[in-house]
């Protein structure tokens, strides 16, 4: 793939390091701030892969909205130090979880490496997208023609989520 190796490897290294910190840090606020950095790295990778709209949405929705929600809840709950003990299970359980993850990861990497990448099936080569007016335009035209039903369904989903979140988090009236 024609992406810059320098930028790819630096984004990937930073993302892996900080997602390790998300899992390992004791304090949830440190995890949340590491997660923000991971999201920005992912945004950079999306932009490198010519997915400009997705990169912008990644920054706006994930690094903006979702992380603000997380940090807001952490601040709101104001958890005291003893109650945020970190790890589940004993040493053996933790070892088994890590072994399982590494095993499955090697299986995935082996599968990706051994299979040949699929041949191009679509018509949207970077050149054609450029001629049609750019990534955002092509994506939005598809969104309002071919994918109009799922698009409308997401608005129903979001309405349900708003009502549900308020109903769950509301203080019970006595």
């Amino acid at each position, binding site marked *: *793939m024609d*992406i*810059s*190796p320098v930028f*790819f490897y630096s984004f990937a290294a930073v*993302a*892996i390091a900080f997602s*390790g910190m*998300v*899992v390992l840090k004791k304090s*949830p606020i440190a*995890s*949340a701030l590491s*997660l923000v950095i*991971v999201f920005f790295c992912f945004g950079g*990778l*999306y932009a490198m*892969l010519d*997915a400009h709209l*997705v990169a912008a*949405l*990644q920054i706006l*929705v*994930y690094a903006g909205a*979702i992380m603000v*929600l*997380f940090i807001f*809840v952490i601040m709101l*709950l104001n958890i005291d130090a003893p*109650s*945020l*003990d*970190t790890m*589940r*299970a004993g040493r053996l359980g933790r070892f088994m*979880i890590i072994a399982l*993850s590494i095993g*499955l*990861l090697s299986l*995935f*990497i082996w599968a*990706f490496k051994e299979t040949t*990448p*699929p041949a*191009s099936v*679509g018509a*949207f*080569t970077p050149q054609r997208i450029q001629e049609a007016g750019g990534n955002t335009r092509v*994506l939005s035209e*598809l969104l309002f023609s071919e994918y109009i039903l*799922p698009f409308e369904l*997401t608005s129903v*989903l979001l309405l349900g*989520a*708003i009502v*549900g*979140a*308020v109903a*769950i*988090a509301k203080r019970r009236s006595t």
Partner: protein
Amino acid sequence: MMRIEPWVVLAFCSTIFFIGFAGVLMRRNIIVILMSIELMLNAVNLTFVTYSKLLNHMGGQMAVFFIITVAAAESAIGLGLVIAMFRTLRSVDTDQIKLLRE
């Protein structure tokens, strides 16, 4: 210039996915578990975008668009549940959820 093979990008995606996977299984703090789920969702999104580029097909990016929407709804509901849980248990430790065990 050196080229990045597609499997390297996909291997990076699966690395992030399994870091999130290990986080979901290992941590006890429910907020960090939700963050690990976000990590896994992001890894899947990057896989979609990579294949979208490989196949020259926009379906992958369209799927990412919908996944981002669902992830936003999911974290709103999830954090609402965390607040409800904290209100009843005064804790965010998942090992404290044992009402059905007693």
